[in-house]
């Protein structure tokens, strides 16, 4: 039995939360699973080569448009709050990333994953697997129809609960932009208690993982709507060449 309390973890989070950058700390002790799984040496700077400045491409044979609707994968309607989550995938210059792969996975409305490692005694929904994927359109827009996931307990410490979230896996224009992250919901009372969310020690950066309720996305008598844009970090060919030009000028 895990005897570390939430108060102890919250104190560790407070102690570890000196101002940080836009990305999570890899070494963040309150998230116990990170202790032996983070590099201790600094990341080494590499000038990206061509393969790193481009991305794999995905096409119509790779993704069925129906995979973007997580509520129609089985014989009936899943239980929970039906919602649409949509947004754009952009690079750091605000350019859309078109026709690129976005994958999502999530717990059901009761906070249960369809995964044999999830032993949380909340009900499995026979009509909900919680896996989807889509390609962005020409404007970089993705959209999923799904069910709002519930929070769920985990074993980082006693009475540990994850804020409700949807996992996102996103490809950019360059492999250096590869991103796996989690999207959260506004006002979740578990934010302050969660060592994974708090591993991003800059508040403005943390806020970027929180979707916005958008009544324009909400559909009458059908679903609520959330908007969440994703900005990819890292060099791509255009940005890297611009950077080289700046160096030449210096």
């Amino acid at each position, binding site marked *: 039995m895990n005897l570390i309390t939430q108060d102890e973890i919250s104190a560790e989070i407070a102690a570890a939360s000196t101002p940080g950058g*836009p*990305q*999570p700390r*890899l070494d*963040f002790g309150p*998230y116990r*699973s990170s*202790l*032996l*799984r*983070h*590099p*201790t*040496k600094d*990341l*080494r*700077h*590499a*000038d990206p080569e*061509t*393969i*790193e400045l*481009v*991305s*794999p*491409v995905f096409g*119509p*044979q*790779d993704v069925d448009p129906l995979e973007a609707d997580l509520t129609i994968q089985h014989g009936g309607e899943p239980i929970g709050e039906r919602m649409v989550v949509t947004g754009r995938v*952009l690079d*750091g*210059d605000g350019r859309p990333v078109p026709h690129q*792969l976005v*994958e*999502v*996975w999530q*717990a059901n409305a009761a906070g249960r*994953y369809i*995964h044999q*490692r*999830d032993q949380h005694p909340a009900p499995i929904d026979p009509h909900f697997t919680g*896996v989807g994927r889509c390609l962005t359109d020409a404007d970089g827009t993705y959209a999923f129809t799904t069910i709002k996931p519930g929070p769920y307990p985990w074993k980082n410490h006693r009475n540990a609960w994850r804020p409700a979230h949807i*996992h996102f896996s996103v490809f950019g224009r360059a*492999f*250096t932009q*590869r991103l*796996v*992250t*989690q999207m959260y919901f506004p006002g979740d009372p578990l934010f302050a208690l969660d060592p994974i*969310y708090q591993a*991003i020690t800059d508040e403005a950066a943390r806020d*970027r*993982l929180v979707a916005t309720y958008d009544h324009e996305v909400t559909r009458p008598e059908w679903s609520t709507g959330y908007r969440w*844009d*994703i*900005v*990819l*970090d*890292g*060099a791509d060919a255009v940005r890297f060449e611009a950077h080289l030009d700046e160096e030449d000028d210096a």
Partner: protein
Amino acid sequence: MSLPPTPGQTVGPFFGYALPFERDSELVPASHPRAVRLHGHVLDGAGDPVPDALLELWQLDEDGMVVQAHGSLHRDGYTFTGWGRASTDRAGHYQLVTLRPGAEEPGGAAFFSLVVFARGLLDRLHTRIYLPGQDDALAADPLLGTLDDRDRATLLAHDEDGGASLRFDVRLQGSGETAFLRYGRSS
């Protein structure tokens, strides 16, 4: 315009029913005449296997050309797309079946680009897997030239089985810790 980036988060423990797909780790069928098995272990700071890691490989083709072909998620058995995905098994072992990439330019060093995700790893890690047996190219490689011998060794694959396999271990922490890379990203 410069937009602040969306932060990464750990892939968590439950990606196993979402991200793997049929023949995800087979960039070519094992029956391909030049198929090479790229395999190894992912290890943590105690030297223990990491059974819940996910690796992605991205590479040039045999002629050193960028591939921009559809079909990575729906393998047709013929199209080489240059990208694949492998989960570690309960022993922390992964394997991919692929082709040896060519170098981008004559005299350049041939390598695979690798990205690592795992439960407990708060953001993804990039690295490179350099092919063995190209000593002059390795000696002239700009990245390897910035590394000491110990770090350099962590980026080199080893031939096995007379060249039928390449061995590459990923050590997230500790003795022999893999040299992980950043490319001017803000982290």
